[in-house]
C-alpha cells in the first residue's frame, strides 16, 4: 500500500483552523494542483459542495 490517510477528529469549513489541516493533507499528494474529490454521502450529499468547490478553486485546488 502506498496511499496515505489523514484522519481528522473534527472540523468545520467555517472554522479558521480547518484550512491548514486540509492544506496539510493535500500537500501529501506531492502535486502543486492536486485533483481533489469530495464525497458527502455522510450528509446525504446536503453539504454545500458548490461552496467548497468555489472556495477551493479560488486557491488553486482542482
Amino acid at each position, binding site marked *: *500500500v502506498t*496511499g*496515505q*490517510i*489523514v*484522519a481528522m477528529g473534527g472540523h468545520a469549513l467555517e472554522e479558521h*483552523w480547518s484550512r491548514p489541516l486540509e492544506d496539510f493533507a493535500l500537500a501529501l499528494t506531492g502535486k502543486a494542483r492536486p*485533483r481533489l474529490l469530495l464525497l458527502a454521502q455522510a450528509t446525504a450529499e446536503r453539504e454545500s459542495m458548490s461552496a467548497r468547490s468555489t472556495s477551493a478553486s479560488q486557491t488553486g485546488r482542482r
Partner: protein
Amino acid sequence: VTDLSLFSRDERDPRAVILEHDAIFVSGGNTANLLAIWRVHGADASLREAWTRGAVLMGSSAGMICWFECSVTDSFGPLAPLRDGLGLLSGSACPHYDGEPERRPTFTRLVQQEGFPPGHAADDAAALHFSGRELVEAVATRPGASAYWVGPDAEIALPTRLL
C-alpha cells in the same frame, strides 16, 4: 474540485471518478449511512483501490472513522460501537475526543472494559497521518488539540505537531 453523487447517479462511473483523483475528502455526518451507500455502489472497493494506488484519503468526523475497522458513532442516535468500517486501518477510532463530552468516556469504556479493539482518538482540530497502515505523526491546528492511543490499560497522548 469534483464531487460525486451516489444518491442521484449520473452517467459517470464512480470507480473511474474515484481513481482519477489524487486526494479524496470525506465529509462528516452519519457514518453508517455513508458506509451503506458506498457499499451499494461499490465505492468502498474503489476507495480501497485508490488507496493502494497511492491516493491521499482524508476526512473529518465520519470521514475520520470510516477508514478504520471499528469506531464510536452516533449514527443510530446514542453513541455506540460500529464494527463494520472499511478496515483500511486496523483497530478502532473516535473523533471529537474533546469536542463532545461523551466521546472520551464512551471510547475508553468500550476499549478498557468491554473488549472493543484498541485504537486512536483525535480532538477537534487534530489529525492522524498514516502512510499505508503505519502512523506517521499527529498534527493539529489549534494549540492544545491532540491525538491519542487508547489501549486496554491506558490512554496515551501522542506527540502532536502544531501546524
